[in-house]
């Protein structure tokens, strides 16, 4: 009997060792996180963060050089001069120096969940949403300033306005926090989970956001009151992406393909049209020219502000993320296609594509 127990114990110990050695990393399906600033382009995808050459689309480097199977990146990097801040699925949040060969300045390791949303920064304070239901506020020297806990994973990019941190919650809420200590100022309940990041309009001092509850709302930032709620008379679908505010209009899209312009003041509809397919990615504004729409099936179209389609292109794969606009290009991330990133100029001409080397 003792022998049997000894053998069982050895099996369990062996299993433990084997498990520690054979771990194959997190299992999750997600989309490339693209961020651009100045002449820098970063793409977070699977085991790497890539820095792309804006002229050629070739990877200048990748981080880490040698992949760690447990380290998976999907959150877009926050670009801050010579550094980027990016979180991974190994529950780590990193500050990486990106001048020359990338080097890790510090790693914040206190989270227990994945980093999926892009972090936000204001002064010395970095706000990082995490799947462990916490928002982490960290200073630039890697000191934890505060945490705020909720019931659901935080997956969208927070918004920092003056002394407030405003963040969408899957708990059917928009949460307003005190930037100094993370205490809750207020929570505004919506009809469905809020996946899209909120957008701020200084003119009305309001937050605009849509939810999976087939609604789009304006929330007064000071009072937390829902000033108006738009549901298109019951025809609006779920809203997965953040809106754009341009020329006195708030423009957003829903999953069914509708693109809708509202008056930020009153919530009254200016116009709407259907882009012709399922769209989960948001609208990307090209200042002074118009906006880009990316459908799930890979159709990328550019519309001027008079809603005329100027050009339309098709990329291989499915698009779920809002295209990123740089000074000269539109970057479209796709999955299950020939390439991971497609770059177009503002006339719709393909500039380059990027596909990570195996």
């Amino acid at each position, binding site marked *: *009997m003792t022998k*049997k127990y000894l053998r*069982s114990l050895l*099996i*369990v110990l*062996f*299993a433990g060792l*084997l*498990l520690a050695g*054979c*771990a*194959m*990393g*997190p*299992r*999750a*399906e*997600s*989309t490339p996180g693209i961020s651009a600033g100045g002449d820098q382009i970063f793409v977070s995808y699977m085991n790497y963060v890539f820095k792309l050459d804006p002229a050629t689309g070739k990877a200048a480097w990748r981080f880490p050089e040698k992949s760690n199977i447990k380290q998976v990146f*999907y959150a877009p990097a926050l670009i801050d001069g010579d550094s980027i801040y990016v979180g991974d699925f190994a529950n780590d949040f990193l500050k990486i120096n990106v001048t020359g060969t990338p080097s890790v300045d510090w790693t914040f390791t206190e989270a*227990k*969940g*994945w980093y*999926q949303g892009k972090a936000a920064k204001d002064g010395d304070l970095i706000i990082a949403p995490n*799947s*462990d*239901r916490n928002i982490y506020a960290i200073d630039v020297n890697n000191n934890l300033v505060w945490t705020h806990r909720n*019931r*659901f*994973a935080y*997956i969208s990019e927070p918004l920092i306005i003056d002394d407030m941190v405003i963040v969408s919650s*899957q708990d059917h809420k928009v949460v307003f926090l005190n930037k100094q200590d993370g205490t809750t100022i207020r929570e505004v309940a919506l*009809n*469905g*989970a809020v*996946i899209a990041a909120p957008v701020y309009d200084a003119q009305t001092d309001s937050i605009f956001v849509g939810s*999976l*509850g*087939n609604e789009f709302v304006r929330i007064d930032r000071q009072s937390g009151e829902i000033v108006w709620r738009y549901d298109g008379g019951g025809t609006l679908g*779920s809203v*997965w992406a953040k809106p754009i505010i341009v020329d006195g209009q708030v423009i957003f899209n829903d999953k069914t393909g509708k693109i809708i312009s509202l008056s930020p003041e009153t919530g009254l509809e200016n116009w709407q049209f259907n882009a012709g397919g399922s769209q*989960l990615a948001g609208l990307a504004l090209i200042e002074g020219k118009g906006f880009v729409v990316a459908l799930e099936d890979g159709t990328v179209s550019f519309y001027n502000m008079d809603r005329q389609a100027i050009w339309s292109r098709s990329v291989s794969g499915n698009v*779920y993320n809002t295209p990123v606009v740089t000074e000269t290009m539109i970057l479209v991330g796709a*999955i299950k296609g020939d390439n991971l990133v497609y770059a177009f100029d503002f006339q719709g001409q393909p500039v380059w594509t990027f596909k990570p080397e195996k």
Partner: protein
Amino acid sequence: MWDTLIVQPFTNVLLMITMLVKNFGVAIILFTILIKLVTFPLTAKQIKSSQAMQELQKSPRYLKMQEKYKDNKEKLAEEQMKIYKELGVSPFSSCLPMLLQFPIIIGLYQSIMRAMASTPLELIKLERIVYPFLDPNKILPIQNRFLWMDLGQPERLMIAGIGIPVLTILVVLSTIIQTRVMTPPSEAGNDQAAAMTNSMNMTMPLMMGVLAYQFSAGLALYFVISNLTTVAQYAAMGKTDWSRIFPWIKTKPKPSKPAIVIPDLPDEEEVAPVVVEKVNKPSARASAKRVRPKMKK
């Protein structure tokens, strides 16, 4: 087709249970038990078929036949087929119920994975398969917290800064128990079969442990409940020899009604009398003694 017929209904039932009990972890437990109950007739048939085969293979008639035709494989196969036909058993009869259960088990696994959408992309995919009457936009996402676990991520219980994979340990232990319950003790003399059984008994828990360690806690929870339900089903049929799992328990399962009645050979004269050797094999030392040449002094 697969999604529409299997994964989608399973996912929706799981979500309905979640809405009823307001807890996804409890819903996984109840859903797993429910599926196991629904597939119990198949499990029972599998157990009975397997028992019938075991009884047949241990019967004097079968052993005599094997001994008689041990040098004529073709004839042996022919005689085996005859006896299978005569008694209405088949070595594959326990496989069919198992094969029928496979799609259900895979569907159950996939529905749990789908419902635990952890990324926006997974949430989009989940939203698309939820039936409209459940109002997906209102009920999603599912609250993944259960006890100390986030069911959408691999489970670790943090104790003094060390993440202990409690659920993985439970999966390994429950799989050890389940494999011991399901695999009959190997017969003396059948070393190859015994080695295979032992190897299976060791690799299965390890494999399940590796999966539980890496995949979401929700899936590991399903593994544990599924294993325990299987053990309970075997116990309910009186097929569990608890002394194989807990050696300090001396009780053996009650002798149950034989799964098949094996008649004697119709004409005994046809078979040469077989001397059944005593079960106790000579020890290795004794055998060695017999073959060791005498050394000259």
